C-alpha cells in the first residue's frame, strides 16, 4: 500500500488504480491528497531521499491506526528528481464514514510532514540544495548532542 517511484508520480493512473482496487470494498469515502511541486523561488524542481526501513514501519503503524477505525491508507512518493508542476506525493484514505476519512487524512498528512524519513532538496542550476528552512526535526531529535552523557 506504500509505493515508491523514481521521479514524478502518474497521478491520474494512481488515483484510478486505487479507486478501482477498493471499488467493491464498501468504503463510502475516498480522499486522496496530491502534492505537486510549485514553481517558486526559481527552483527547477525538488529532489527526495527516502530511508525506506523507517518509512515502512512508520506507514505500517499508521495502517494499524486506520484499521482500528475501519479505514485503510495508501501512499505513493517519489525518489530523486521531480520537476515543477509534477507531483511527488499522494496519500489516500478509504473509510466507511466521511468523518473518519476527513479527520484521518489530515492527521496522516501532518504526521507525514513531521515524521516520515524523507529529505527534500531544491534543484537549483542542476544542484541539490537541502531544504533546511522547510524541514522539521523529528520528535526526540538532539539526543546525541546533549551535555548529559
Amino acid at each position, binding site marked *: 500500500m506504500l509505493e515508491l517511484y523514481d521521479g514524478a508520480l502518474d497521478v491520474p493512473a494512481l488515483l484510478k488504480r486505487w479507486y478501482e482496487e477498493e471499488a467493491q470494498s464498501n468504503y463510502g469515502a475516498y480522499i486522496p491528497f496530491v502534492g505537486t511541486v510549485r514553481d517558486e523561488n526559481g527552483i527547477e524542481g525538488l529532489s527526495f531521499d527516502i530511508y525506506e526501513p523507517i518509512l515502512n514501519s512508520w506507514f505500517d503503524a499508521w495502517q494499524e491506526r486506520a484499521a482500528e477505525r475501519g479505514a485503510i491508507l495508501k501512499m505513493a512518493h517519489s525518489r530523486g528528481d521531480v520537476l515543477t508542476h509534477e507531483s511527488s*506525493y499522494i496519500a489516500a484514505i478509504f473509510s466507511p464514514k466521511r468523518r473518519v476519512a476527513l479527520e484521518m487524512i489530515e492527521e496522516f498528512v501532518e504526521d507525514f510532514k513531521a515524521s516520515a524519513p*524523507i*529529505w527534500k532538496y531544491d534543484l537549483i542550476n542542476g544542484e541539490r540544495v537541502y531544504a533546511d528552512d522547510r524541514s522539521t*526535526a*523529528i520528535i526526540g531529535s538532539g539526543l546525541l548532542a546533549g551535555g*548529559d552523557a
Partner: protein
Amino acid sequence: MVRIEFLGPISKPAIEMEAATLADVAKALREDAELAPWLENSAVAVNDTLVSGLETPLKSGDKVSLLPPVCGG
C-alpha cells in the same frame, strides 16, 4: 563493532566503532566538529527503530542511524 549511518543531507560515509551504549556513540561523534549541528537536530534509530535514551544498549552488528530534519511531500 556497531555501524553508524548518516542519512539524507548529512552526506557522510558510514563509520564503525566499538560502543556498549548510545552514550558511547554520542561521545565519539561529538569529537567531529562538522557533525555538531547535525547532532543537535537529528533523531536516532537503532536497527531502524527510533530511540529516546542514551542508555540504549548496543551490541556488535547493531546499526545506529542519524535522521536529520525531514520534509517529505
